[in-house]
């Protein structure tokens, strides 16, 4: 039926999809705004934010380090063999450092946190929704947005830049491992070029990206979980769909916003 409608008037169908998408974006933005403002409503929920920082941040440290090391290793390896053709292996430090700080750091950190914490957030909030725990909060006159969403937003805004910084540093050493320790480039060249080529604007740009990604990821994941009940699928199926959608939509949005931000920041 849907297919027939689409085939009959494809332009209208595309328009409908686009309008739906824009409406969804608008709802998610309002969701974020509302959750963000409630962070500052007294009494301050310090304990809950701390718990979320531990969950989103601390528990991601290992997986971030692991990803960062191997990203650095590969960058070092690829960069070395690309540069050696032009006899400019000394530029490896710049190449690795710039690609890490500007692109790889914020993007891969966001993707890894989506995989680890974002999916968990969507599933947890989704289960709370289908088992009426969110309704229970409302009956107790506890604002579920403030109680559940605000601490996660606050924690994500704190954690993403820190994890990105960690990723950058560990990745830089990964590049050193493959470029210098394995392939024999002089470490002094590597680090001095890395230091001289990265400017403050690059680092700020990376952090801006990571903060925007934090907003995107936490909003999409919480939103998908929070509105699980509005789907046509109920119960466990609805939650699993919400989790999948949370991961897919936030990954895509991270890459899209990355492109948009890069065009502005360059």
């Amino acid at each position, binding site marked *: 039926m849907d297919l027939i409608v689409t085939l009959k008037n494809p332009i209208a169908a595309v328009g409908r999809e686009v309008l739906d998408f824009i409406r969804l974006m608008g709802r998610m933005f309002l969701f974020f705004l509302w959750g963000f403002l409630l962070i500052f409503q007294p009494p301050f929920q310090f304990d809950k934010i701390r718990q979320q920082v531990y969950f989103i941040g601390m528990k991601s440290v290992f997986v971030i380090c692991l990803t960062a090391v191997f990203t650095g290793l590969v960058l070092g390896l690829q960069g070395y063999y690309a540069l050696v053709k032009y006899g400019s292996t000394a530029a490896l430090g710049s190449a690795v450092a710039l690609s890490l700080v500007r692109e790889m750091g914020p993007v891969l950190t966001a993707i890894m946190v989506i995989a680890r914490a974002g999916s968990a957030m969507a599933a947890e909030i989704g289960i*709370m929704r289908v*088992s*009426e725990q969110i309704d229970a909060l409302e009956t*107790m*006159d506890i604002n579920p947005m403030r109680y559940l969403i605000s601490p996660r937003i606050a924690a994500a805004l704190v954690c993403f830049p820190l994890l990105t910084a960690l990723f950058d540093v560990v990745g830089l050493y990964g590049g050193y491992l493959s470029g210098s320790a394995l392939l024999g480039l002089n470490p002094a060249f590597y680090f001095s070029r890395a230091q001289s080529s990265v400017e403050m604007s690059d680092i700020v740009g990376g952090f801006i990206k990571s903060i925007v990604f934090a907003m995107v990821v936490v909003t999409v994941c919480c939103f998908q979980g929070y509105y699980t009940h509005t789907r046509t699928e109920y119960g466990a199926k609805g939650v699993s769909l919400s989790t999948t959608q949370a991961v897919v939509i936030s990954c895509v949005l991270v890459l899209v916003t990355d492109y948009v931000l890069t065009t502005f920041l360059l």
Partner: protein
Amino acid sequence: MTSPPLIQLQDVVKTLGVQRVLDGVNLSIQRGEITAVIGKSGSGKSVLLKHVIGLLEPDQGEILFDGRPRSAMNSAERSALKRRFSYVFQDTALFDFLNVFENVALPLAERHALPPAEVARRVRDKLSQLDLHAVETKYPSQLSGGMKKRVALARALVTEPEIVLFDEPTTGLDPIRKNAVHSMIIDYQRRLGFTGVVVSHEIPDIFFISQRVAMIDDGRILIEGTPEEIQLSSNREVRRFVEGLESPHDDLTGIDSAAIGHKRLLQEMSRLQRFRIPFSIVLLAVEGLEGVDRIEGHMAGQALFKAFAGHVIQNTYITDTCFRFGINKMMVVLPDTDKARARDFYHKLARTMNSHLHHSAGEALKGFDFNVSAGVAQADVDSSLEELVAAAEQGKTIFYQSREAS
């Protein structure tokens, strides 16, 4: 002039998806009463309850509190109104990331600015009343279904609410626990004086604990009245529903159900009027357990009632009818018996009581004080059934008193 009802639903209409779940519901809930809402599954009972607390907004119609419509309230007033409520969810809706203590403490800690020590005191108080202090640090996923229900009950009552809404509080519990929850609801209701709305399938037990019953069918209130009015209603839908759920036997004690007993009383009454064959009734009640405010007490009370019913049955003839008359009451109809012979029955019951009860429910009853009282009355041609029951009620004397285990 009478004061307006505490909660009043006026022509409430709600459509969920394509289904019109509520189709013009009118219902008044009076202060200090327990109102039971019965009806087939999927008839909109839970949806009705969610409208009362404001989880769902009606498409049309109005919900009034103390005569004031909710739609006219601002958010601060709605918030203040919500604080007067507690809601016991059908599937408990306990927070699975919090343990039992934190679950019960949450409503106090989050919305009442109480010092932590005071919160802890009130929570421990409630937990020990519901016999949950041993599982304080466990998480909901580690508890059995019955225990979760009790935690949910503790969480609802810890704020000492003015109105408590129960969404099928006893579904999935065994007969003793089910009756214990019912007896706890009326016990708390008497002591705390809250207004209760209970959505339930438990017919006929729900009739024992409620003052008003409303039956919902096809999104409308089919009938509303006292439990007696519902049970005696001649409406076909009501009869079919009530009789369909009502088993001929009481599931706690195995004795006849209230409906069967009532029929028997009517039969005996007409025999008396037509053929002058006398009959007597004995009204038996287990009392004195109200002082025990823990679930153990309520459970023991129900175990005792069960054992006691067994004892009574053993002492009746096959022509006698023994049926459940209330949450802690039963009645024996003795056909062809005058008051003197009914007294003999009563004395025989009392004589053998001691050994029997201790034999069958001894362990469960240790440490509890209770008594069993009985009233005997002979039917009179000129008096009505109500007068007969009242006479038995008046003539009640204690014939068994438990002795505190020394």
